[in-house]
């Protein structure tokens, strides 16, 4: 079983602590088991909440294989909620 390290930031920590080892395989599997409520991660079904970013080893999964990005024991998954809507930001 692949067990990557998962790090939750900010307001997501209430769902699982700062850092934990969770069953992996792909990002999708990690998100299924990380403890963050599914309706927060996927409020509209299959598409990841636009307010949530997922990194694998510091790279946003949007620039890899998205939810199908593979993760192994060696990998670190970071999940954070930002909720930014406007731009250019502060």
């Amino acid at each position, binding site marked *: 079983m692949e067990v990557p390290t998962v790090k939750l930031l900010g307001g997501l920590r209430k769902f699982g602590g700062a850092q934990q080892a969770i069953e992996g395989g792909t990002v999708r599997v990690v998100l299924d088991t990380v403890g963050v409520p599914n309706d927060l991660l996927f409020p509209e079904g299959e598409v990841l909440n636009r307010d949530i970013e997922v990194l694998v080893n510091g790279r*946003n999964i949007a620039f890899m294989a998205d939810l199908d990005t593979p993760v192994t024991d060696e990998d670190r998954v970071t999940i954070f909620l930002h909720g930014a809507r406007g731009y*250019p930001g502060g």
Partner: protein
Amino acid sequence: MICGWVGKVLRVDLTNSKISTEPLREDWAREYVGGRGLGARYYWEEGDPKVDPLSPENKLLFVTGPLTGTNASCAARYMVITKGPLTGAITTSNSGGHWGPELKFAGYDMIILEGRAPSPKYLWIHNDQVELRDAQHLWGKGVWETEETLRRDSGVPDTIVACIGQAGENLVRYAAIINDLHRAAGRSGVGAVMGSKNLKAIAVRGTGGVRLAKPREFMSASWEMKAKLKDSAVTAEGLATYGTESLVNVINEHGALPTRNHQATVFDRAEDISGETLTETRLVANKACFACTMACGRVTSLPGEASDKFSVNTSPRNWNIAGEGPEFENAWAMGSDCDISDLDAIIKVGWLCNDYGMDPISYGATLAAAMEMYETGAIDESVTGMPLGFGNADALVAMSEKVAFRQGFGDQLAEGSKRLTARYARPELFMGVRGQEFPAYDPRAVQGMGLGYATSNRGACHLKSYTVSPEILGIPEKMDPHVSEGKAEITKIFQDITSAVDSSGLCLFLTFGVGLEDMLPQIVAATGVDYDIDTLTQAGERTWNLERLWNERAGVGKGHDKLPRRLTHDPIPGGPAKGLTSKLNVMLPEYYERRGWTADGMVTEEKRKELGLPKA
């Protein structure tokens, strides 16, 4: 006079103690919106680009926007415009709190300060009563005591004060102007300019208001924007809960947090100085500026043993009091950049920076450069007076006082890292642009920020084109932070929009939750001027180009859009952005082209005419 404005400029000749008022240039207010743009237009007319920034000939402007003092969310901002002693460039430092609105309520849109007072003075403004008063008793005092003394002695308890601390008096090149004890017009040394004029403070009390062209429409638009702010997780909850400090972990996880003077971009103890840790261990409450609905301010305490863990002569004990901060930039500059993970030291020095009145970004980054010089043998303890290797939290605390008072090695640190590194023939260790130190995002890991830094008119700055939005947060669309493609276009757009927001009197942090299109109806309803997105954005572009032209006359325009060699040639040694360098050489030509400038970065005559810019 168009609404949103009082229509009156206060001019103070400090040399001759002459105070006068004059009508606000309505044509300029229309063209440049207000705040940063309007100030730049006045400064273009009156500010000699060749002048010594710390001479009486340099002028110092405090400028509000048309929405400052209204009940639009976050309508608290005022802008300080002058020639920066750190940079030699036009500087536009803005602050929140309550001072800007109070100036408007007193009946003035802006203040132009000229000359130098023969002895320390403060400016007293109580509606129509405007006086220069003796400040000998305040000279040498910190910001907090100055504010409290002025408020108490005035007999007007609601007096709002903007002032300098010892750093401004002693002409520290990154001295700030502080209002409401903890809110800063922080960068480029605007506090030193105020100190050079022998002006300790501007104390204001006003009982008027702001005229609105269409009050009903304004209120409706204001509520619409408030609803959107409530709908955004960051402006509704994130900033209130964790403050900007929440970015420490986010940026570090991306491998973009400058560490040890940009030698690395991952800080292994980031968690210790993060917003999460601050909130769990040291946060007392959050705090808002005038009309703010986000409240990102951090009221912090150092309880128990932490109270007296660090001390300096001016602040031997903390007495369990609470101060404000740190913000993300404090935590980075005095934390990872100095390889320091002691949050209590960072909190303490953040408070001291507010009390001394100096910019914690430039202080921390200058200290980081000094630490690298120390570790590589360029300087030793005979110069610094104490061990100054990376990670020395005691030195971080002690040196802050020495800088503010220009004591010992602090006198050299007070010059900023460009001058410091040049003094010891190590200019390659200066990490900044136009003499100003970088903020907290490494340009190799977030490519757009490198272009933004290099072209920022006031020197390296994250607040002029925050491409972290698309590159890290995916707003308005996700852009890969590691590539240079598309960054010239987005940087130009962000610079123009940001200039417009900065001119309105609104806080830039609003743009975490809403866009310029959400602010527009309030600007239109307040002023009665029929702006649309295009004209408002063009006003921002006009401001950007005017600042650039001013810098060109000052000798810090084209040819100064550079990053340090470390960032363009030394690959990041490890972490998520390992192997990357800044591709500024690729982005810059495209940026000039999109700006409509010459290939070497000059504003063309055609562009000048298109934007209706004045001739030199």
